[in-house]
């Protein structure tokens, strides 16, 4: 996100007068509150903030944030964001999408906004189901998901949003979940990153895919399975009794027990947000044998496309007075003198 003068606001300032229309108990409420709580802490200015979304339950988000908002079409939010940021790189843009919107119909655009590295916070709400169209399995649904369109269980393999993001060239990848108290910290890190910041937020669809993330995201009792990553800190979980260490032989990671808090002796790795290889391993860890890697997985900025384009344009225009008349008369010309003649 760009340099800006911090503005003092409260949570109330970021609430619209519109009735929120998600199902009661939907994880989206928690995410909305987390965002609305975070924005004042970041000193964001509602007049310079734009929320852009595609289509789906998550994409109703802009209507509930008192800022500029654009609810666009299915899967295409990244393209709108690109146009907005190229037209005005000063705007602070948040993009809200879902697993169907961002990984299926809009997968191509997700790839390209990450590859180009547009300066935007991308929040992908992953509930592993199509909610707004009443419960069909989605590109992130696990094999065997029973849904109206897969009554015998789904067969195709799920996409992994964070792995996809890294593969597309993302320079910031993070994970959180709807009711996590750590979500605001993840959002702040995303906001601090200049360039495309990709955040996968696991979200509980209580109507069509209830509690599917309970193994690591249940309000109580799932902490054991959460690995909250912190740059420069050992990768510990289960209250510090376990950690991730290098499995040199297999060129991957392994879970090790930590005795009496001596993580060094156990060989636990220190998390490095600039280690791209480590990031690839963390987003691919199979849940079950491994905990769910959460927090900032990767954060290694590169120049944002919109900033580079804007400098390039400014350079091209520097000291030049655009002369349209000269442009029109460019190339080889000739002059006709004499009188006009009516062709008929």
């Amino acid at each position, binding site marked *: 996100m760009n340099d800006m003068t911090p503005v003092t606001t409260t949570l109330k300032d970021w609430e*619209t007068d*519109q009735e929120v229309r998600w199902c009661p108990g939907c994880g989206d409420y928690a995410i909305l509150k987390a965002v609305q709580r975070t924005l004042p802490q970041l000193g964001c200015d*509602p*007049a*310079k903030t*734009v929320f*852009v979304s595609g*289509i789906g339950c998550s994409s109703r988000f*802009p*209507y509930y944030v*008192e*800022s*500029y*908002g*654009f*609810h*666009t*079409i299915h899967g*295409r939010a*990244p*393209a*709108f*964001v*690109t*146009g*907005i940021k*190229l*037209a*005005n790189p*000063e*705007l602070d843009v948040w993009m809200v999408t879902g697993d169907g919107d961002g990984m299926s119909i809009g997968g*191509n*655009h997700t*790839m*390209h906004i990450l590859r180009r590295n547009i300066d935007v916070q991308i929040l992908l709400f992953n509930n592993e189901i199509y909610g707004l169209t009443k419960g069909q399995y989605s590109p992130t649904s696990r094999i065997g998901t029973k849904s109206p369109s897969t009554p015998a269980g789904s067969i195709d393999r799920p996409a992994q949003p964070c792995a996809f993001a890294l593969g597309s060239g993302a320079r910031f990848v993070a994970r959180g979940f709807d009711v996590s108290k750590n979500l605001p910290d993840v959002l702040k890190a995303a906001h601090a990153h200049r360039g495309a910041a990709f955040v996968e937020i696991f979200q509980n669809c209580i109507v069509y895919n209830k509690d599917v993330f309970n193994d690591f995201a249940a309000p109580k009792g799932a902490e054991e399975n959460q690995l909250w990553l912190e740059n420069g800190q050992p990768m510990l979980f289960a209250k510090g009794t376990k950690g991730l260490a290098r499995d040199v032989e297999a060129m991957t990671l392994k879970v090790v027990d930590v005795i009496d808090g001596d993580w060094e002796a156990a060989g636990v790795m220190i998390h490095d947000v600039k280690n791209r290889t480590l990031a690839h391993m963390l987003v691919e860890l199979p849940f079950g044998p491994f905990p769910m890697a959460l927090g900032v997985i990767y954060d290694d900025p590169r120049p944002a496309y919109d900033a580079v*384009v804007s400098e*390039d*344009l400014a350079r*091209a*225009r520097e000291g*030049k007075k*655009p002369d*349209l*008349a000269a*442009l*029109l*008369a*460019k*190339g*080889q*010309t*000739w*002059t*006709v003198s*004499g*009188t*006009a*003649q009516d*062709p*008929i």
Partner: protein
Amino acid sequence: MASATSPSSAGTTEAVVVRFAGDSGDGMQLTGGQFTLSTALAGNDLATFPDFPAEIRAPQGTLFGVSAFQINFGSTAIETAGDAPDVLVAMNPAALKVNVAALKPGGLIIADTGEFTKRNLEKAKYDENPLENGSLAKWDLLAFDISALTLEAVKPFGLGNKEALRCKNMWTLGLALWMFDRPRDPIHDWLKAKFAKSPVLAEANIAALDAGHAYGETAELTGPLKQVHVEPVVSEPGLYRTITGAEAISLGLVAGAQLADLPMFFGGYPITPASAILHHLARLKEFNVQTFQAEDEIAAICAAIGASYAGQLGVTSSSGPGIALKGEAMGLAIMTELPLIIVNSQRGGPSTGLPTKTEQSDLYQAIYGRNGDAPLPVIAARSPGDAFDCAIEACRIAVQYMTPVMLLTDGYIANAAEPWKVPDPASYAPFPVKFLTEKNAKNADGTDELLPFARDEKGARPWIKPGTPGLMHRIGGIEKAQGTGHIDYSPANHQAMTDARKDKIDGVANSIPDQDVCLGNQSGKLVLVGWGSTFGPIHQAVRRARKNGLDVSHVHVRHVWPLPKNLGPLLKGFENVLVPEMNTGQFKTVLRDQYLVDAQPLTKTSGQPFAIAEIEDAIEKFFDDIPGNEGGEVAVNETQLPSPEAINP
């Protein structure tokens, strides 16, 4: 084109049609382009028609690899690339086979015997050499070894055989310059600039050009080759240049953005024949033009809408298949009432169709091709030069009415060149945009309120840039409440908003000029109603028919949606309405629907523009049939001007 004297009879003539044809790799488009420039500099009016295959490098010598460039030039107004060529330059047997049937009887064939080898004759599916078996008897034939003459001319420069033969097109151009009494200096200058990095190639090409020219002078006595002089056209005084439709649209968009006082954002994705616009605009950064090559057609329009939302003039451009992909996003721009220009360089369809050939078959798509009641204004350019004014008009309507506007051009206009009187930008009335900067309404309690969907006298809503303090609001594709723009699905509101969107676009007709009759009387027996690139052939056909005493007029519609307010009454002043168009009768249907007039179609979908004679014949047939003219479709006789495809198996 007035009746031309064959250039094989020396002297002065009014107009000439020359077609250069060769292999895709022979540089025929380049030759044609430079001949066009020298013709323009000589003061003739002209029109060109580049006709090339979709394949980038089709196999050498094949029928489908033939690339042709036709130019019609003269001392009177020229509005088409001409029907039948007077001169055909055939660089190989395939070029001869594909193009010779179109040549005017008595016309001149110039052929390179060096390429009429057994192998090339086989590739062109000739059983025997047509240059030797008398099959070309109805034309004048000038066959000689251009390849050998070129090799001889460039010998001093020590080029390899392949490189040396590449100079053949310049040799041919040199001969053509001699034939029509054109100066060589501009081509010399151009070659020096083009080959600035390898002066030896520049020198070799100049030598080839000069040799071709000298050959003309010395061969004068020996055969059918004669020098022909075409007087300069008497045209309006001023500064002129040649311009293609793609150039004119690009420049018109730049001018339009300046008149609106906005930066321009252009989102595009490569597609033939629309890409040329992206290429032109990509070089104009200093005019506050930003081009963005998107990942696909959809992203291109969505980014343009995003830029419009952020306060720039969003533009996107494509051809039929790409326009189809953009349809949903156009609906969003209509729903959110944001300005946007969509340029459609039409080509033959459906699906991939004929990527490099011309057609006008996207009219329904332009006017009707979206889900829901989704009206938008549609403007069609009639010629390369006209495309400049049309682009400005599209910008004006888009920002004044807060609406996407579709600008229709086609493959013919995009690639064809014509002389263009360079306009003075100061002669166009500016239409600067005023963004909303403060709340625009009052609540019941007297406090200020923002109504993003309040409407002005044109029915347009305010344009509000994100970043403006105090005016935060949300827009989107869901139906919005009148005024506030909040989500509102209620029946009465949807009715009211649908009506408001329709009324707004209908109201665009209040800001466009009345439809004129561009040739002929304001009422009478027959009117030909055209739109887009058929202007040239219709106009010339009507002119000829009128000279023959027929009561026929020409009306050419720029604003195809909404239509000019007087068009209905105007058409009702004619007993008969004939609509020539390069599709199966789309505008005819629109006119019938709008005015209940008995419009009759004259259609052509061969990928080639109308020949003047095809329309002239239809007019004559029409008058022959009166009385007892029962209407019915007037079919074009395709045998008059066979396309390369018709010959190519």
